[in-house]
């Protein structure tokens, strides 16, 4: 799976792009978040308050409940501020 992070989430996680291979038990975004938190203090910091985290799976907005498959691209970012 490919992880991408943007804005202050990228800075906190210390990761712009990351390729990870979580165990089979990680089958939704919530599971992935927990697994990343446990694995890496940067992710733990970035995910401290999940109410500030927006998620996209394969470039579409998604929720913590979204199912994941190998090869998916999961993006984490703060609420957007363009326009």
């Amino acid at each position, binding site marked *: 799976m490919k992880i*991408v992070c*943007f*804005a*202050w989430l990228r800075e906190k996680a210390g990761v712009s792009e990351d390729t990870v291979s979580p165990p089979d038990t990680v089958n939704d975004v919530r599971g992935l978040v927990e697994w990343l938190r446990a694995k890496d203090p940067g992710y733990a910091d970035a995910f401290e308050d999940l109410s500030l985290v927006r998620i*996209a799976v394969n*470039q*579409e*907005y998604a929720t913590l409940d979204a199912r994941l498959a190998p090869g998916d*691209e999961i*993006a984490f*970012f*703060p*609420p*957007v*501020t*363009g*326009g």
Partner: protein
Amino acid sequence: MIRVQREDFDVGAELDRLAAGRGSVGGLCAFVGLVRDMSEQRAISVIELEHYPSMTERALERIETQARARWPLDASVVIHRFGRLEPGDRIVLVGTASAHRHAAFEACEFIVDWLKTKAPFWKREHTDAGTRWVEARASDTAALAHWEQGEAAGHDPSNSTRGARKKAAE
């Protein structure tokens, strides 16, 4: 038409292009977003606009498609810049062309409201007091919610701003 680019754009030329060869267009509506010079009492020297390239174009195309399904538009354009920008610089252009001016206005504002809350861009401001990521505003989310309420009411374009304004006044 969608463009995501580092370069500036020419508003007049883009609007001309919207109408060119389309004799039924009676009105164009445009919104141009600019970099302001102050943020919370601090002078901004520069902003950086980060974005999520593979998602951005897809997202912008979707919103343009939605707007064109919802209002009778002859043409539309959305251009959003990224990278390093200075106060006064253009950030975004949304333009809509229609035989009906009210459709042009509504569709344009709908797209802008959507961009503000859904398009994957993030602003970082540089001021004399340091740099900070701009925080999203609740008012932007509320602005978009109004369009979604309108949508829930049945996708009837006439059942939008003006219709609601009328109902509320009655």
